[in-house]
């Protein structure tokens, strides 16, 4: 399982822009069927990560996955999501599949956040096929307001 290291937006620079440009180009090539090597899908589920004032929000598209079949774990900056997606159609002997685009199976992915999250305060919700994990930053990494006293 490959682990993905996120870059903080604060460190976003021309390299990050280049990275984004390359990814966009690869996407275009893929769409044209010009991707490098044998066509292979990206890992499931696709994930987006956002930074908020308190920490991070990780979202994943997991249509048809029940919340009891999902597993989310957080340890400092490492977030792991795993689970299974079952697709079963009742069979009555004359059942036939005219089209199959949806995939069933198991998945597991790991990500490294730019800064550690607080596992105690992390919340995961699954709604309408979207997993949303709210990861507040660990206390020591929260921006702190320091009041200045007059001497």
């Amino acid at each position, binding site marked *: 399982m490959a682990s993905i290291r996120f870059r903080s937006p604060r460190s976003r620079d021309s390299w990050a822009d280049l990275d984004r440009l390359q990814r966009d180009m690869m996407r275009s090539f893929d769409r044209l069927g010009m991707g490098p090597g044998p066509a292979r899908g990206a890992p499931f589920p696709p994930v987006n990560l*956002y930074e908020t004032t308190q920490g991070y*929000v990780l979202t994943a598209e997991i249509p048809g996955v029940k919340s009891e079949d999902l597993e989310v774990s957080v340890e400092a900056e490492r977030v792991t999501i795993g689970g299974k997606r079952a697709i079963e*159609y009742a069979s009555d002997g004359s059942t036939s599949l005219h089209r199959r685009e949806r995939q069933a*199976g198991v998945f597991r992915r790991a990500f490294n956040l730019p800064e550690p999250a607080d596992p105690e305060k992390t919340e995961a919700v699954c709604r309408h096929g979207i997993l949303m994990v709210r990861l507040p930053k660990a206390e020591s990494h929260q921006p702190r307001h320091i009041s200045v006293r007059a001497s």
Partner: protein
Amino acid sequence: MSNQNPNREIETREKQEVEREKTRPGIVFRPDVDIVEQTGEFLVVADLPGVDDQHVNVRLENGLLSIHADLAVEPEPEWQPIYDEYRVGSYYREFALSDQIDVNEIKAAMKNGVLELHLPKAEKHRPRSIEVKAG
């Protein structure tokens, strides 16, 4: 019917943008679907992550069945994207409907971001077993 191996690793396919639907702002994607034929009905199952039952519109017009859906779960505007593997937008897909379908009996349900459309076959198209009598 052989179902897929439940233990294989799932892959994600790049979302396919719909080219023709340009009447609304924003990106429109083509959802993945399964179409299953059973004795009494056709079942159309579409992946619509982020969509609830209030945001999906199923229409039937001139023999064309269309699914149009908007997001109920969206990223909030103040979130700063750091890393993105998928884009968000609405969904559109259409199917030419067989004349075997009893259009008055079509039923739809949304669950966990998946739309299930039950399209019952008209009575005359259902298989029937005919009793053979001895002469």
